[in-house]
């Protein structure tokens, strides 16, 4: 009894002292004060989108901390150089939806019950599609920075959700313009059996077929299989101009690249930006990935990208900076900017503030790229948000010298 009481008193004293020191330090550094701004994050910790989700989570944790410290890089003019949001510290709370749309709804509501003022969706597109219903219902601002589906920002239920990564239609037209320039006609596409990959393939295929290209091969690799030889051989037999990678799963993607290399398929390789979001594939596929061209949200030559990359690499030096991280930064900065002009955290006020944002400097895209929102325009990007990069030495390190998106 005596010992325990002593321990309790000791613990209390230590905590009190630590708090005093902490508060003192905070005052000294001009840290954000007051009630925290609570951002609820839907993540995937154990489902099929875990890999991408956790990359985005790493970014949001780091950048929220940076903003709380007042490190806003080039965004001082637009978002304000004060620390935090409206001078208040950002607090992140998380819920795992396992990339299961039924759970996303439950977890989103749970986040709101736990006090979230704003929601960030860092899980798969399908899950976000379902989750945004909660946003419209509860009239709370929602950001899905990494999802590229245009359906997310189309009615119904799109009134309170915003995205910023270039949607598949915009990426699609960038590919088409590039291929037209090279006089290509025959496209072979390979995807995996996951719903995400199928959605991507459907979207891009529709776009290029509408522009007059011919799909000469449409192959699929089952998730869980370790061998793509049959599919690659069928592709080779069709003599395509382009082999288009619309994979969503890293393991199968790497196997496919190795097969392409082994069978000496001559067509030019193009991939959608899942490849550049997943450095794991570059590691697994080795030099089989070299030469592949990707229409990617980030590339060399944009000082904003480099600034955010520097912040990221200070803490996560060993990890590769990918476009997922860049759009998460933009998502947070967008909220900070909107909160500054709305002067309140009420959902409708924030939403209206976001819709008024134009000429917002982004961390991704070509130099000088900006985001522009409006009522009915909840994805603020254009083709200037895209860069065509080529893989060299197993990294997407060079800008393609033949063509860059111009619209």
């Amino acid at each position, binding site marked *: 009894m005596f010992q325990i009481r002593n321990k309790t008193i000791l613990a209390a004293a230590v905590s009190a002292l630590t708090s005093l020191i902490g508060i003192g330090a905070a005052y000294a550094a001009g840290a954000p004060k007051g009630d925290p701004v609570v951002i609820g994050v839907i993540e995937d910790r154990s489902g099929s989108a875990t890999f991408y989700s956790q990359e985005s989570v790493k970014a949001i944790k780091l950048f929220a901390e940076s903003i709380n410290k007042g490190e806003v890089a080039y965004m001082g003019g637009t978002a304000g150089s004060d620390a935090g949001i409206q001078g208040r510290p950002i607090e992140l709370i998380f819920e795992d939806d396992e990339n299961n*749309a039924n759970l996303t709804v*439950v977890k989103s*509501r749970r986040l709101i019950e736990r006090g979230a003022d704003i929601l960030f969706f860092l899980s798969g597109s*399908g899950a976000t599609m*379902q989750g945004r219903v909660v946003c419209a219902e509860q009239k709370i601002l929602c950001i899905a920075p990494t999802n590229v589906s245009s*359906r997310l920002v189309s009615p119904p239920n799109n009134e309170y959700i915003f995205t910023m990564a270039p949607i598949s239609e915009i990426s699609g037209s960038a590919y088409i313009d590039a291929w037209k320039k090279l006089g290509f006609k025959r496209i072979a596409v390979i995807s995996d059996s996951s*719903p995400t990959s199928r*959605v991507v393939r*459907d979207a891009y295929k529709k776009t290029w077929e509408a522009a007059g290209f011919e799909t000469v091969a449409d192959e699929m690799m089952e998730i869980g299989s370790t061998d793509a030889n049959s599919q690659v051989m069928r592709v080779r037999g069709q003599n395509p101009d382009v082999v288009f990678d619309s994979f969503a799963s890293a393991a199968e993607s790497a196997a496919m690249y190795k097969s392409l290399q082994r069978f000496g398929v001559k067509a030019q390789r193009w991939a959608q930006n899942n490849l550049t979001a997943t450095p794991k594939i570059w590691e697994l596929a080795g030099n089989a990935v070299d030469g592949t061209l990707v229409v990617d949200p980030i590339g060399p030559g944009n000082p904003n990208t480099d600034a955010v990359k520097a912040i990221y690499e200070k803490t996560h030096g060993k990890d590769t900076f990918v476009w997922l991280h860049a759009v998460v930064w933009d998502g947070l900065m967008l909220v900070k900017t909107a909160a500054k002009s709305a002067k309140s955290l009420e959902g409708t006020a924030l939403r209206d503030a976001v819709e008024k944002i134009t000429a917002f400097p982004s961390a991704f895209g070509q130099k000088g790229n900006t985001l522009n929102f409006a009522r009915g325009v909840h994805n603020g990007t254009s083709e200037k948000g895209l860069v065509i990069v080529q893989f060299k030495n197993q990294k997407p390190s060079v800008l393609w010298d033949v063509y860059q998106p111009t619209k």
Partner: protein
Amino acid sequence: MNTTQTHQQRLARALRTESLLGLLGTLAFVIFVGGQVYRQDLGILVIVYALLALGMYLPLALGGRLSLAYNAYFAIGAYSVAITGQQGGALLWLAPILGVGLSMLTAAILAIVTRKLSGFHLAVATMLFGIVVHTWLIHSGNWAGGPEGIGGIPRLFLFGWELGRTELIAVGALLVWVIATAIVHYRTSFFGVALRAQRETVPAAQACGVPIVSLRIISLALGAGIASIAGMLLALMNQFILPESFGIKVVFLVLFMPILGGMFTPWGSVLGALIVVFFTLGFDFFEGPGVLTFGILALIILLVFPQGVLGGLAALRQRFKKPGVAKGGSLT
């Protein structure tokens, strides 16, 4: 003569008690869920899982046939609502007929094709069927929504009355009670006894003229119909369905529920559903390694408490009963 009367009276009374307790539990559940949006989300999941578990329980506990194709019937129910609900929902009334009918037909065909199989062979064959249906839904064309699923499902109107979220919970819970009670009565009816007899000894049952194969097929079909109702409720509640929700993982999860709650009564499946949802969603503690903890828990229950929660409670009750009361008239 006297003993038989008492036995039958006891049986009837036990059945009534079980039904009444079930009804009370259901009412308590509906009131607890109430109008709170978050609780309603959990509530519909409990109802959906309970129906799926009941659908699996019927042919399994009574007929000894383990089919793992339940995600297919779940999907058929949900998609029948989603597809008929397009274009403003004029055809929505078709959904129950279509959903239940199609799933029962599918189950019957699958049962006939696999009638010679048993044990793990049957499990794997039906599991593959479930996987194939799931794959097909993902790669289906526009009419079934493909990988992006189907959205914009309208609410159902019953006699001019809109079935909103609260109403769906009440209707769903009532359905669970009706079905569980029906199974309880079915178990002690002629067909139920015949079905259970063939589970114990096929030759003896056959000798008594029990049409084994037909009974098995019928029980599997009924189970599928119940599972499809779960799909319909989910589609009506969320107003949006994705093919990813109908994978084989759902089946594995539902598999645990009758065991957790207790195999000797259908209410065990319902309780199992409640426990599973509570454990995987209601508790922050089980986030992340939630499935791991849950799997370990399931193993512990299987090894140490095979009668499940209700079984354990029943055993406790027996212990406190006065000695000398005849133990005849058990419901197992």
